[in-house]
């Protein structure tokens, strides 16, 4: 789809990405080492899944670059292959940021599709994890490593 056709169809298609960016900014500001907002990945996963944890599933498609071009703005796309009526929220977590919670997105059926794209900050090489919490209380997830490097030896 080209941007033009997207803009034309804006009323029909939900602009989910906007939501994420706002959330992200707030999170990024908080992400200072050892801040009072520091939260580990383990704890964050517990919080978003209500202590139940999440199962790896290929229904969650996570698209991230293999090597970040800029660790401060790493593009992340999540598509959850589950009818929107059954999806409550999508969460993007990181395994090594001092604040592991990068974005929380709560969905309604009017979003049309459980899809979300944003950019997150990564403090170094680590895994990015996308968690989808379903309305039945269960959670599914996908995880991918992203390398943050100074590069320059190609």
């Amino acid at each position: 789809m080209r941007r033009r056709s997207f803009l034309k169809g804006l009323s029909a298609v939900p602009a989910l990405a906007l939501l994420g960016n706002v959330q992200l900014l707030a999170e990024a500001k908080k992400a200072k080492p050892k801040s009072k907002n520091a939260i580990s990945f383990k704890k964050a996963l517990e919080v978003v899944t209500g202590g139940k944890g999440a199962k790896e599933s290929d229904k969650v498609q996570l698209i991230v670059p293999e090597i970040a071009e800029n660790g401060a703005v790493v593009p992340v796309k999540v598509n959850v292959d589950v009818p929107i009526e059954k999806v409550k929220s999508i969460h993007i977590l990181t395994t090594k940021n001092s604040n592991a919670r990068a974005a929380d997105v709560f969905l309604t059926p009017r979003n049309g599709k459980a899809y979300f794209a944003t950019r997150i900050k990564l403090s170094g090489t680590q895994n990015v994890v996308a968690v989808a919490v379903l309305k039945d209380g269960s959670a599914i997830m996908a995880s991918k490593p992203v390398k943050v490097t100074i590069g320059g030896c190609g």
Partner: protein
Amino acid sequence: MNIDRRDFLHIAAALGLLGVSGGKLHAKKRADELKADDILEFDPVGKVTLLHICDMHAHLKPLYWREPSTLISAKNLVGTPGFLCGEAFLEFYGIEPNTLEAYFDTYLNFEELAKKFGKMGGVAHMKTIIDEIRRDRGKDNVLLLDSGDTWQGTAVALKTRGEAIVDAQNYLGVDVMVGHWEFTYGKERVMELLDMLEADFVSQNIVDNDPFSDTFEETVFKPYTIKEVGGAKIGIIGQSFPFTSTANPKRFTEGWSFGLRLDSLQGYVDELRKEKKVDCVVMLSHDGFSVDQEVARKVRGIDFILSGHTHDPGPRPITINGTTIIIAGSHGKFVGRLDIDIAKGKVKNFAYKLIPVASKLIEADKKGVELVEKWYKPYNKELMQTIGKTKGTLYKRDTFYSTFDALIGEAIRDRMDCEIAFTPGYRWGTTLLPGDDILVDNVYEMTAITYPEVYTFELKGARIAQLLEDIADNVFNPNPLYQQGGDMSRLTGISYDIKVNAPTGKRISNLKVNGKELDPNRNYVVSAWGGNLQNAGEKLREDKIKPVYDVVTEYVKRKGTIDISNRSNVNVLDVACGCPKKGGVC
């Protein structure tokens, strides 16, 4: 031509020229008239021919280029194509030692064979091969595809800001290309040069770097092109170097975002097959040979990947999951010929040959000679100047250490008064034989980049150790998708031990600076060029910034005779030899 019958038999055997009928007479008859015909001999298949070149690095003239004598990788990749050199290479591909092919593909006996077989590549010689195949197959049945790293690597390229090379590509008749070092001329210059270039530039993996481009797949260039050749529709998807913005300075491509983008790649493959109904899907790639083997494992429906970036000569195609991958070495040493038989919308059969551009055996096309002369003329006075002589072979490549890099490191240390010098692990350059004069042109062949500045700054010991680990992880990562395809940065003033197969961040030990153990808390004076290292340092010495080619030229002039040791400053702990064979341990 100083090729006797014995040499011819070597060449003929290597190239499979001697038929079942033995051909003793045949060979005898032709021994003293050995020409392009013999090297070009090919049993044609189908109607379509794709000619492939990659990583020419702007070498308009023939040169010597010695392949690596050390090529170390993570354990799981040892002995696989992309990580083969020397005897392991000969064994894998079934090549006889001391043949023309062995000379082109390995470092073995290089100096002796160089005298016998002469220089490699050159656009005038490439053109003879390309024209002959076009004549033979019919020009409408042949495409010439260029996997990039074509515009950069020599003084004429740098001084004409790429124009000389684009002129040469038009002369060769390049039809489609992708890029990597091309981008280091900067976005605006790239666009100017692409206007001059008569080929299509395609790339599915470069998009505008704004939050929405990704989502809407707004590629900067056409993602693919469709060519009608030999009665078939061929879809050619472009894949430029995925890590351009991390491997080279970001400022050249500000606003563009790269990456492998395998999801959109799959999308374009499907689009070509289902909507555009092409008969054959080709990916013209600058991913690197090992990365493209991963791509073949992950993406469905590509018939052929024409790879580049890692400079591997690939005498035989490899097929993974129905995708066949070829790669044609570097520096203009080879032209790959791929014949394809297409019927009923499908690839039925193919045949491949990696043709060595042996400049002593293949006649130069006159127009090419004139073209090269034309572009060199304004610079000959500077470039043909002899500034010194080398005692031993000066070469680039190898995983940790090579003599030409050691010379550059020595020159930087001498001139910049630093404790440690970093030289990048690029895989392009040149080779000089023992006793050869060193020309200014040769220095440029090793250093001609648009960001030649040698920076001198301070780096904390702990940071140096961390950076080396980071670089080692780009080279030795067991997953090819996380490698960037270069060799390890070269260090002068530092020695270290390395365990290639240790986990990330734990590979390097026994770091010594000029013989003393590295102090993690002390600041060291470091000089570096060709990378982003200066961004990690502090107290940059602004008054000392100087182009690396000037630093090296001045040093060689002053020294006169260059004598560089073959001894590496890196001690590999877990792998025993230069060119490991299959099985993990040498």
